């Protein structure tokens, strides 16, 4: 059966491995499970809507019109931070192309020397010295790279993420190097918004009760009861989370490192990334440079499709050099019909999850939404408690 090679231009995000979903032609990047994110949106928008409907008219008249204005500004800031956290690339490290993967394999084999038959080869670890501490870099069997320091592989999104903090189902994305500060500002501003709404709910109920009595007030503004309930439960979790992340930032640690106990305990190394100065650590994390995304999501590339046809026209050579496309990827692995975005993994990844992959489970997204991507069961339970 003869086939015809058709070349078409696609955006690079369509061919990215990993379990992300992309929207707006690659501008938006999120995890696959978005249900909890919609819940977050609903809770924030719903509670604020109730606040503006029930409390603000009364408070603007009886106290000050700046109250709703400030609430609106705070609400907009919270939404901006949430959307920025959820929609941006957390710092995903692209997988190694075949030549790079082979190069690394050759280096590993050279370093291991001759392994006697039947024996397991040693774990793939590279030691680097950072600020006079020895840090171990682990090899990622999925991405075929030695992970940079502080990077970790998220099994929910199936990507290695730089300065991996955790996978947050509430924002529907991983939190990593590029969006950590937005995540922190989101939790901080959400804490402030929750406290603000809670306070003014109480003030409003008190002021009205003085005139009308407590039960009548509740009947007049039923929304207040809902708001108070939501705010009360949110307060404990979000304020606690903000406090926890403030602590982490002051020590220049990630949630991942904290949970794994990388820098604590007797025989462990000290954190080599900390400046030993709280202000310096905060400045680096919150006011550091804005790192660019190394995933060129909206770049164009050529894709060759093998389309079986009745005609006997010979397939044209799958040349990938073209002056119009940016950085053509070697096309040898891409001669398949177009698949659903991100439903596939590159062909070279599948057969090679071989030698003692203690680090990652096989890609099975059966993790309940509130679990984190840690592969240890204990750490995922601890993560639930942290959230």
């Amino acid at each position, binding site marked *: 059966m003869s086939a015809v090679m058709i070349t078409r231009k696609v955006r690079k995000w369509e061919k990215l491995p990993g379990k992300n979903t992309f929207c707006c032609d690659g501008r938006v990047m999120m995890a696959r499970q978005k249900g909890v994110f919609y819940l977050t949106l609903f809770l924030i928008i719903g509670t604020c809507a109730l606040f503006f409907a029930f409390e603000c008219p009364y408070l603007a008249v009886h106290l000050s019109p700046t109250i709703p204005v400030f609430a609106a500004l705070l609400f907009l800031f919270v939404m*901006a931070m949430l959307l920025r956290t959820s929609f941006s690339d957390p710092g995903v*490290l692209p997988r190694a192309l075949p030549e790079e993967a082979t190069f690394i394999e050759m280096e590993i084999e050279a370093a291991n020397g001759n392994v006697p038959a039947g024996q397991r080869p040693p774990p793939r670890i590279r030691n*680097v010295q*950072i600020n006079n501490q020895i840090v171990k870099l682990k090899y990622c069997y999925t991405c075929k790279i030695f992970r940079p320091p502080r990077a970790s592989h998220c099994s929910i999104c199936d990507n290695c993420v730089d300065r991996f903090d955790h996978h947050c189902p509430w924002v529907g994305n991983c939190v990593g190097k590029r969006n950590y500060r937005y995540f922190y500002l989101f939790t901080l501003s959400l804490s402030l918004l929750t406290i603000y709404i809670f306070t003014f709910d109480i003030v409003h109920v008190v002021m009205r009760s003085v005139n009308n009595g407590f039960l009548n007030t509740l009947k007049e503004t039923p929304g207040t009861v809902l708001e108070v309930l939501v705010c009360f439960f949110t307060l404990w979790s979000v304020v606690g989370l903000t406090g926890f992340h403030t602590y982490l930032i002051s020590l220049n640690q990630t949630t991942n490192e904290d949970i794994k106990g990388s820098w604590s305990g007797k025989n462990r190394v000290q954190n080599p990334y900390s400046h030993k100065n709280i202000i310096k650590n905060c*400045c680096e994390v919150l006011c550091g440079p804005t790192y660019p995304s*190394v995933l060129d999501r909206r770049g164009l590339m050529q894709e060759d499709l093998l389309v079986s046809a009745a005609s006997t026209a010979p397939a044209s050579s799958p040349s*990938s*050099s073209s002056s119009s496309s940016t*950085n053509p990827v*070697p096309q040898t692995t891409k001669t398949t019909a177009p698949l659903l975005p991100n439903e596939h993994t590159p062909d070279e990844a599948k057969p090679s999850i071989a030698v003692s992959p203690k680090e990652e489970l096989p890609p099975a997204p059966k993790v309940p939404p509130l679990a984190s991507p840690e592969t240890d069961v204990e750490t995922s339970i601890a993560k639930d408690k942290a959230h």
Partner: protein
Amino acid sequence: MDVCPQFHNLQELRHSASLANKVFIQRDYSEGTTCKFQTKFPSELESRIERTLFEDTVKTLNNYYAEAEKIGGQSYFEGCLACTTAYLIFLCMETRYEKVLKKIAKYIQEQNEKIYAPRGLLITDPIERGMRVIEISIYEDRGSSGSSSGSSSVSGSTAR
């Protein structure tokens, strides 16, 4: 010893050369997670380019990246200004890092044209490899090499 293939420019490289090998310059993490590449001279390039030229290129790249990631007055100002606008200012303004990346792309293009292509080598911008490695492609003259690989894939640096 074989005479190194002489290519006069990138066009000639593309048309008359075939890819023989690729060398990957790894990251140097000795100073932390800031972007820095090892200046160790790979053995595969020994016959192709002078050590000093290679080291100069890598050191200049390292300096560019250090400039982009510098935490100082300008980065604080940019960070605080952006925060007060809820980071909406990034929709219209280019960050300092992006400006430096453009300079890097230009520098790599220039180095390729002047130094590397005439020696049958080509540097790929690290941003296209996730800032993990500097990929240097080694080309052989198609006429002289015994086993030439089928396709010549040229990965040039591109402006983002």
